[in-house]
């Protein structure tokens, strides 16, 4: 019965979206927002109906209502994990790592020799599985959030470095010559011309960093942590087969990830309003 209902919901949602997408208003913002929302809601409803209809046990897949219930009843616990992993580990490491990478990039940029040498190395390191340094850093900095922040620093450093260095090269000869005719010194042309021109690249690095920061902070907790934190909670709850708790943590991680990314994107829009990619629509 429930399975049949799930099929019905699927067909209805699909038809609704089909009609919306083919309608005359398909370009408007409301429709552009409703269509994916309908899709998401349909998926969740089908998930709920299938879990009940097929009697899927909780240790395999809890239904959305169970997850929401668990989420609501263990808010203090989730909040403690959130502050430990996201606010202290991920955000702390993110700020340190991006700041250090930015400073290094401005420094490197003054020396063509260093730039030629460090860029290929940085590109190489950015493609490596840097999460693997987690056990080493946990050994060095202890189990608390400092080691998680250290993992995050290592993970965000190189993508940020490469992007900033590339961004600082963005200005062309004409623009730099103009600054020179104004008798601008290094600091002035950096602040007024090259940094603004580099902003789109810098924000690209910052946005890549947001996801990496969360991944680093969570995975580093698999190698040892105090008895609080999202990675710790996920691995112990999986051990206890309390999958509703795991899913609640995943919801927190997803919300934190999108908010973090969204926040950086908003700052980008405010600061680089002049760039074609932001002016577009």
């Amino acid at each position: 019965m429930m399975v049949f209902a799930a099929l019905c919901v699927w067909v209805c949602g699909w038809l609704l979206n089909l009609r919306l997408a083919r309608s005359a208003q398909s370009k408007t913002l409301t429709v552009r927002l409703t269509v994916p929302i309908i899709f998401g809601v349909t998926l969740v409803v089908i998930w709920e109906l299938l879990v009940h209809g097929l009697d899927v046990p909780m240790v395999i897949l809890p239904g959305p209502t169970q997850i929401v219930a668990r989420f609501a009843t263990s808010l203090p616990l989730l909040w403690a994990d959130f502050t430990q992993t996201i606010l202290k580990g991920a955000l702390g490491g993110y700020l340190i790592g991006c700041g250090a990478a930015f400073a290094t990039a401005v420094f490197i940029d003054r020396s063509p020799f260093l730039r030629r040498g460090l860029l290929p190395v940085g590109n190489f390191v950015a493609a490596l599985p840097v999460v693997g340094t987690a056990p080493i850093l946990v050994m060095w900095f202890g189990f608390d959030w400092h080691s998680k922040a250290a993992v995050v620093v290592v993970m965000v450093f190189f993508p940020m470095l490469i992007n900033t260095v590339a961004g600082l090269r963005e200005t062309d000869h004409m623009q730099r010559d103009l600054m020179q005719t104004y008798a601008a010194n290094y600091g002035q042309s950096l602040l007024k011309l090259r940094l603004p021109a580099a902003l789109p690249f810098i924000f690209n690095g910052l946005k890549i960093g947001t996801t990496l920061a969360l991944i680093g902070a969570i995975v580093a907790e698999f190698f040892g942590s105090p008895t609080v934190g999202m990675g710790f909670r996920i691995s112990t709850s999986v051990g206890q087969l309390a999958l509703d708790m795991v899913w609640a943590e995943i919801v927190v991680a997803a919300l934190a990830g999108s908010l973090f990314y969204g926040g950086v994107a908003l700052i980008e829009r405010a600061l680089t309003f002049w760039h074609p990619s932001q002016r577009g629509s």
Partner: protein
Amino acid sequence: MKTLCSVLVVIAGIVGIWYLACVPMNIKGVLDQAQRAGEVVSPETAKDRRDVKAWALVAQNSFAIDRVWSVERPRLPAPHQVVTELWKTTVEKKITSKRSLIYHGQVTLTATLMGFAIGTGLGILLAVGIVHSKVMDMSIMPWAIVSQTIPIIALAPMIIVVLYSIGVQGMLPKAIIAAYLSFFPVLVGMVKGLRSPDTMQLDLMKTYNASGAAVFWKLRLPSSLSYLFASFKIGISAALVGAIVGELPTGAVAGLGARLLAGSYYGQTVQIWSALFAAALLAAALVAIIGVIERVLLARMGAKS
């Protein structure tokens, strides 16, 4: 040539800093060992040494400096220790041995490749669907983009345990995590690539009265290839990370992730570092192979490089 020279200088600099960093990192361990062997160290007990700065210890016990690069379980192994360990565990050990890094690397590599194949296959198929169906585009694309901001890797332990409880174990769970991680970059890149032909080119196909399939095979697919390979490169390193992380929570006995975990349990730092370098070499090799395939394929298609 100039680039190569500066790269070499930078690498030499990094190795130099690494050797230098070994001194303060390992000095305490060296002194503890020397004390146990009955040598005279200043400050005499481990308790007194705890509060002294590492560099001060070095200054007071200059006889111990040359030992910091050959400690058995150092906090920071020296580069040559890592290289020796890599050499011992790859060339000198038999491939079937449980201690051979090649054995562990190959376990991780198969999971990575299988996951990469599944993930990219699904990603490409879905991208083709999205480009041709407006409904799919409008409903799925926003979610695909949002999901890239989510630390998907948090799902890894759960996927493994759930699959284990319904009787699937071994390589497949790891491959599924790897597939999941490589799926989204490929999907987004492929959609971008299939959309990359401009209106002029599409109009030309229309004046030729080309069918949808012809437009797809002769225009959209060829022009998407450079986007596809760019996302392949991201996807394969994501898949490797997925396979390694997938080995962590189950206490797997084989694979590079298992080597990392075992090393961190038993304090075998040299083993951790060598597993890390093996993973790095593997990632670099995979990305390089994709780069070569891309260059050969694009050259045969007549693209100017």
